[in-house]
């Protein structure tokens, strides 16, 4: 159930082209070499994108180990020749990310920047023999350099956006470009490239090509407004809290059950923000640390179980306390029964015949923790996507904003419930009903707790 939700969320984030997985699975090893020839150097940016199944053998390898493997493959099989002499491509930068793909499985994305020293070459050839025999998108793209005029026999445009989305054009096959020849003359940074087939770029195989991930890169690059992004995260969190399973019912029931005040509602919201943020951070950290051996989605059921048990406990405590009060209350006010409608009008919350159960700070904390702890896959997706993009700080900020949005909705709801409760108190409602409300709420909390627990159990087992 939770797993299905995670998938639904991921699917919603991703492009529609990521249709049902094919029985043949995701084996592709895709790579792209972008080459720019300047008068004194050749720059190559080598990007590798290993799909979910192709990433499985890399489980348990550290980022450094994976990068070392990529560097070895590139050193052996990516050959650069300037004027028919092989020149050494030195690695000047390397970055590894593991963006989540289908089924919560990580993919692998390596980006190497390479540089070779040359002096005014007239003919540069790049041969890409990496990952031979593996299916996938294999492309070489030419880029303008400095102080040169280049004529290339490969396209100058990359329809994949750096291997983030793959053209799904029904009338073209995946790129399979393994060599590029560039004729170079002194000039001022011009490039004449073979007209690319200009295949229309459909939004891709799902990974990385989603607007959210793009927003990360943009914001990190200073292109997008950071504030706008955070506002979006806040808004998304607020809206997201309205979808089922975010403890709205619990929070409302708790506040009703304990006769909470607006202060309690606000405190609860704050606690939810903190616990939700902490929960996502912790889950994200654990997921990243264990990504080699455990899938994040395997952790979700456990968190859900913990949360369910916590709610169950809180509900039971409220119910028990209420029943104790009620039995005392029953003794003291027994004569009221049967005359309820006569007394209805003089009810006001400050003067209730039903003694308010005290909200203990411990109970409030437990309730807020339970509401916040329920793992929210969307938030995890945001965090992992941010990490995948290497924008961890931004991801953390967005999670805080997201959680705050979530809490704002819950607080608003809580306030509404509290105020409505007071309003109801003023209405001529049969007091029996009013008196029973807290008990019903407690039962509702227990019910929600049971449901969460029961739902989590089969996934944990």
């Amino acid at each position, binding site marked *: 159930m939770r797993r299905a939700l995670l998938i639904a969320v991921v699917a919603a984030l991703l492009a529609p082209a990521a249709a049902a997985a094919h029985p*043949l699975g995701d084996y592709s090893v895709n790579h792209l070499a972008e080459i720019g020839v300047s008068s004194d150097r050749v720059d190559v940016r080598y990007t590798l994108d290993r799909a979910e199944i192709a990433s499985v053998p890399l489980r348990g390898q550290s980022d450094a180990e994976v990068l070392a493997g990529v560097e070895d493959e590139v050193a052996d099989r990516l050959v650069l020749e300037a004027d028919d002499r092989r020149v050494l491509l030195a690695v000047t930068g390397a970055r590894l990310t593991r963006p989540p793909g289908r089924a919560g499985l990580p993919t692998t994305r390596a980006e190497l920047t390479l540089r070779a020293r040359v002096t005014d070459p007239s003919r540069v050839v790049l041969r890409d023999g990496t990952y031979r025999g593996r299916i996938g998108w294999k492309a070489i793209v030419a880029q303008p350099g400095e102080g040169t005029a280049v004529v290339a026999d490969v396209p100058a445009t990359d329809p994949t956006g750096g291997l983030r989305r793959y053209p799904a054009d029904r009338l073209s096959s995946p790129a399979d470009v393994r060599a590029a020849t560039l004729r170079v003359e002194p000039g001022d940074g011009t490039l004449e490239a073979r007209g690319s087939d200009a295949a229309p770029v459909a939004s891709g195989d799902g990974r990385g090509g989603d607007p959210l991930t793009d927003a990360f890169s943009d914001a990190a690059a200073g292109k997008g407004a950071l504030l706008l992004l955070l506002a979006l995260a806040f808004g998304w969190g607020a809206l997201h809290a309205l979808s089922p399973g975010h403890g709205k019912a619990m929070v409302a029931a708790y506040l009703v059950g304990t006769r909470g005040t607006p202060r309690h509602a606000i405190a609860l919201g704050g606690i939810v923000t903190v616990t939700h943020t902490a929960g996502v951070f912790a889950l994200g950290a654990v997921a990243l640390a264990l990504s080699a051996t455990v899938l994040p989605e395997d952790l979700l059921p456990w968190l859900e179980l913990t949360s369910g048990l916590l709610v169950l406990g809180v509900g039971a405590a409220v119910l028990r306390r209420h029943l104790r009060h009620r039995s005392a209350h029953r003794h003291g006010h027994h004569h009221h029964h049967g005359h309820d409608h006569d007394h209805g009008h003089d009810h006001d919350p400050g003067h209730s015949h039903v003694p308010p159960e005290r909200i203990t700070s411990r109970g409030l904390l437990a309730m807020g923790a339970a509401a916040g702890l329920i793992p929210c896959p969307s938030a995890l997706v945001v965090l992992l996507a941010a990490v995948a993009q290497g924008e961890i700080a931004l991801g953390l900020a967005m999670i805080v904003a997201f959680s705050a949005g979530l809490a704002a909705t819950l607080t608003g709801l809580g306030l509404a419930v509290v105020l409505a409760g007071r309003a109801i108190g003023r209405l001529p409602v049969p007091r029996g009903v009013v008196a029973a409300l807290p008990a019903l709420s407690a039962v509702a909390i227990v019910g929600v707790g049971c449901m969460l627990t029961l739902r989590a159990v089969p996934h944990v087992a």
Partner: protein
Amino acid sequence: MRARRLTAVALAFVAALAVFAATRGDGPAAAGPPTGLALDARPADSTAEEVRRLQAAVRRGEPREAELAAAYAQRARETGDPSFYARAEAVLGPNPAGAPALTEAAALAAARHDFRGALGLARRARAAAPDANAAFPVLVDALVELGRYDAAERTLQRMIGRHPDLGGYARISYLRELHGDLGGAAAAMARAVAAAGSARSFAADTNALLGELELRRGRETAAGRAFRLALAAVPGHPAASAAMARLAAATGRQDVAIARWRRLVARMPLPEYAIALGEAELAAGRSGAAERAFALVRAQEAILRDAGVDVDAELAVFEASHGSARRAVTLGRRAWASAPSVRSADALGWALTRAGRPETGLRWAHRALRLGWRDPLALHHAGFAALAAGERAEGERLLRAALRDGLAINPLLAAEAREALR
């Protein structure tokens, strides 16, 4: 390992290629461009060229979408790149109309193992063009996979009567094999090889299948020759590469077998191949390496589960042997529900046996073997079900049959069987 499975999958592909042939013209074995000698020295892959030609034609507005879809499907099989299936489906569109497009859509559904969908589409294709032969192959395949063997045989008879060709021979071979007639199956496949003639990728498919049958009959030399012909026609042909690994195992060269499995899995980690590698590593006592191979299978299982299409009997057998027996039973039931074939019966039976219900498992095993099927793995499963159910004599008979009929391709299972017989 899964020799049986390989044949079945390959046959689904033969369906596609027969359709391909049929939509290209009506001459006998009008498959592939006439390039002269079958195994001449030209290394270029003709299917890729065919794809380019048809892409250009469709761009020009010629109504050849069905042909292009068939060429894409063929390319998917040659390279193992599933994105070609997606392209084929995109070319056909969501509502294929006309016999060729419907036939092609049916073949794609069969390749996706949606056999009920394939059956419906193939019937519509035949209704759209009652005189055409093109829809018959996939119709037969769907009926076979849905366990309707009598109907499949009748349809196949009609198909052969109208137009004997490569696709027809390949299917005769498969049905004979399901009935335990390995010699007859090999003979029919040999005729399919002859009919494939000059078309490289058909030659590779049919030779790989022929070699598998020869291997099961204990004729290793003939098997090796067929596999090498397949690999010469299409270098790196996945099914033939896998078959070479099985051949090495069957002839006792376990290290060669493992090296071949590793190379194949490194380039194409199909569950079938990863399971075979893992079991070969287990037989060699390397449980860590086996676990790494099995991790590939589990990851693919996760993806299929998410897509809601984890209905393959193969996964049920894998879970039963190396995972959770309970989950295996669930998967087995799902496999049976989606394709009630002897293979699904075998998978469900094995899952039940491993889940501690050997009596029920044995009943399903009998169901799997009811046609006379002599698949070494199914026999192995049935044998252990019988032993666990207390039917010692039957169990020993079945295990001996498994060993006789080629269980040696899987040293792990062969060792288990020999141990149980001791």
